[in-house]
């Protein structure tokens, strides 16, 4: 089945991922790619705590994830790969150019970011990073839950998708 979704979500593992996507996709595993979490047993336990026991959670840095990606994609179960920010996903794709789609699932308000969608706020640098991904052949869409429309990056950047 392989990885069904490459998602950027600053909440990492939470309800939308475990239940919202997890149930319709019948998720077998989550690959959480984040330097801080990969280096902290406590953080890993925190995120593992609420995940159903039948669902595996793998923790990795982008470099580790690059080495594991082939194995994850050979898994018979569907999986989601998560990063908490655009830069981590960009680093991973730089190492693993086989990744061709990216889902913006939740990038919330912070100083310097402006509203694009209800669940997507971006700084000018982040906008440019996403444009660069698309110039490199990666399709970027925003979609918080499976029942929502996948909004193309150009519509996201115009900030007009929900107006």
């Amino acid at each position, binding site marked *: 089945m392989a990885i069904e979704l490459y998602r950027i979500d600053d909440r990492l593992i939470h*309800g939308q991922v475990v*239940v919202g996507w997890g149930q319709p996709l019948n998720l077998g595993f989550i690959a959480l790619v984040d330097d801080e979490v990969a280096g902290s047993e406590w953080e890993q336990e*925190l995120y593992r*705590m609420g995940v159903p026991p039948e669902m595996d959670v793998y923790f990795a840095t982008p470099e580790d994830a690059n080495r594991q990606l082939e194995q994850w994609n050979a898994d018979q179960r569907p999986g989601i790969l998560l990063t908490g920010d655009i830069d981590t996903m960009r680093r991973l794709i730089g190492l693993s150019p086989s990744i061709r789609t990216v889902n913006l699932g939740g*990038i919330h*308000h912070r100083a310097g970011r402006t509203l694009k969608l209800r669940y997507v706020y971006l700084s000018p640098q982040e906008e440019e990073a996403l444009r660069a991904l698309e110039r490199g052949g990666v399709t970027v869409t925003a979609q918080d839950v499976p029942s929502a429309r996948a909004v193309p990056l150009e519509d996201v950047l115009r900030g007009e998708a929900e107006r």
Partner: protein
Amino acid sequence: MSDAPVAIVAAHGDLAFGFVSAVEQITGRGELFLPMSNAGLGASDIEKAILELVDSRKIRVIFTDLPAGSCTIAARRVLVARPHVVLVTGASLPLLLDFMSHEELEPAQAATHAVDRAVRSLTTVPGAARGH
């Protein structure tokens, strides 16, 4: 328990506000709970909001909805900084009603009692033909 809020209810969407509204309707004691939503907030903002309420309102108990939800993750981080606070996941109306009805107990004890009651409140009622 005093009339001041003793617990936060943190949940998805408007659920926490609905819980507190229901507690108010049933008992008139909705003021014991502070509702908050995670809608539109990133992980660090949820944690910051919970921590501010814990400190400013001297909160001893946090109720959240999903065990794997972002409110629970944020609350667990708050517990590291404020270990006197108790976290209860899987919030439900029976849970909150039992909690607030045991004012003689310390909030942490009341939370433990409420969890036991809430678990027992989950029942399946099979259909049956109406008797004569």
